[in-house]
């Protein structure tokens, strides 16, 4: 049976089950809107490690071990790990994988890495290439600032449109057998670039990619937005979210009734995150800590998770390039 749907989507014949998730976050996230949902909140952003990057590496390793533990499984049962972060050469991920010692495939989709890893992991399971897969993503505010923007002690004034990179890691175990919500379909995104050059304006840069992937998903699967209880994007922030609604409206599709952005679900107004959360961990911690339990309980029965990533680099920005973006979608149903 052909598993390809339409132009760029996949229907899983044996939908893999998400059997557990885990999250670890920094103190700012631990004081945010989802404060009580995380498995562990660090006391500060460095946790006695020698650098931000080493702390991030610890977070992603911790999240994977915790997800395995919650799955009542062992690391040896995990066939492959699919993971990624925002750092150059996936620094945090690779050193965590060195400790974990399982077969590993690294992924860079910027903030869309969670959806990307869920998509590829599900494909490996559905194809009978594995029984159990761990996926994980991480981001760290200070490590990202220092790499993409400015040293952390510099006095910079962030514009209101900017977003705050989440410090945290979210992980999940996908299994061929077991109980839990299932990954039923996926849509692979294309790189979309509508000319936004300012890296402070990431949400609006990514919105066209999110809209494009959502449109393709609906066309390929023949579904309408109200098929889903909720549609989530990864980290578009307040402004990006509004742009997705507008862009879909232009195509005659109304998503305003059941659409939210994970980046708007992390921080409280008083925490001054400006336009919202961003980073791989934005979708990572929201899905793993909050959406997954709702799916398990049955409060949410069908969701579409659209991970969104901006694929620029500090070099491309300095060379006056605009920001190419991508969005991948996975549908998760009970």
């Amino acid at each position, binding site marked *: 049976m052909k598993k390809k749907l339409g132009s760029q989507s996949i229907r899983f014949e044996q939908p893999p089950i998400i059997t557990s998730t885990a999250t670890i976050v920094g103190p700012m996230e631990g004081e945010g809107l989802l404060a009580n949902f995380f498995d562990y909140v660090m006391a500060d*952003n*460095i946790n006695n490690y020698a650098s*931000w990057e080493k702390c991030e590496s610890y977070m992603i390793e911790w999240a994977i071990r915790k997800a395995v533990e919650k799955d009542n499984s062992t690391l040896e049962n995990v066939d492959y790990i699919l993971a990624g972060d925002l750092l150059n050469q996936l620094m945090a991920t690779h050193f965590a994988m060195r400790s974990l010692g399982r077969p590993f495939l690294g992924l860079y989709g910027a903030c869309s890495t969670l959806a990307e890893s869920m998509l590829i992991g599900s494909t490996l399971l559905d194809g009978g290439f594995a029984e159990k897969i761990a996926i994980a993503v991480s981001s760290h*505010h*200070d490590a990202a*600032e220092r790499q993409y923007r400015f*040293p*952390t*002690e510099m006095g*910079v*004034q962030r514009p209101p449109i900017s977003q705050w990179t989440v410090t945290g890691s979210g992980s999940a175990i996908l299994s061929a057998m077991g109980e839990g919500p299932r990954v039923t379909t996926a849509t692979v995104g294309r790189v979309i670039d509508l000319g936004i050059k*300012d890296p402070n304006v990431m949400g609006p840069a990514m919105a066209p990619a999110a809209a494009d992937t959502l449109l393709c998903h609906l066309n390929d699967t023949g579904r309408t937005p109200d098929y889903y209880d909720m549609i989530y994007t990864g980290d578009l922030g307040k402004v990006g979210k509004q742009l997705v609604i507008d862009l879909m409206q232009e195509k005659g599709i109304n998503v305003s009734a059941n659409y939210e952005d994970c980046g708007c679900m992390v921080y409280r107004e008083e925490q001054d995150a400006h336009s919202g959360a961003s980073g791989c961990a934005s979708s990572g911690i929201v899905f793993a800590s909050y959406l997954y339990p709702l799916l398990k309980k049955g409060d949410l029965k069908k969701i579409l998770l659209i991970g969104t990533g901006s694929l620029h680099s500090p070099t491309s920005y300095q060379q006056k390039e605009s920001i190419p973006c991508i969005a991948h979608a996975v549908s998760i149903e009970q």
Partner: protein
Amino acid sequence: MQIFVMAFVIGGLICVIGQLLMDLTSLTPAHVLVLFVVLGGVLSGLGLYQPLVDLAGAGASVPLPGFGHALVSGTIEEIDKVGFLGVFSGALKATAVGIMAAVIFGFTMALLFNPKG
């Protein structure tokens, strides 16, 4: 007393111009600082920045255009003293204290402290 008021007002106004450029144009803070240093230098060369320094003291010398002024006026003074070599030697001679301070104190603080994020 008057010099303090002038220092406050002129210094504040120069910063306001910087803030306007940062908020209303697509210029980044780095662009604004380079612009200010160059502007201060050019005004200095035209003889227009020294009167501001005489009027507002630190209000003109502390903001970055003042640094540009120090570079240029130092160059010109040195040229008048020693001739052509001053084109190369004057600027750093005049700003040596500031640059040395920045490097030495910067290094010291980096030794003593770690970033908190």
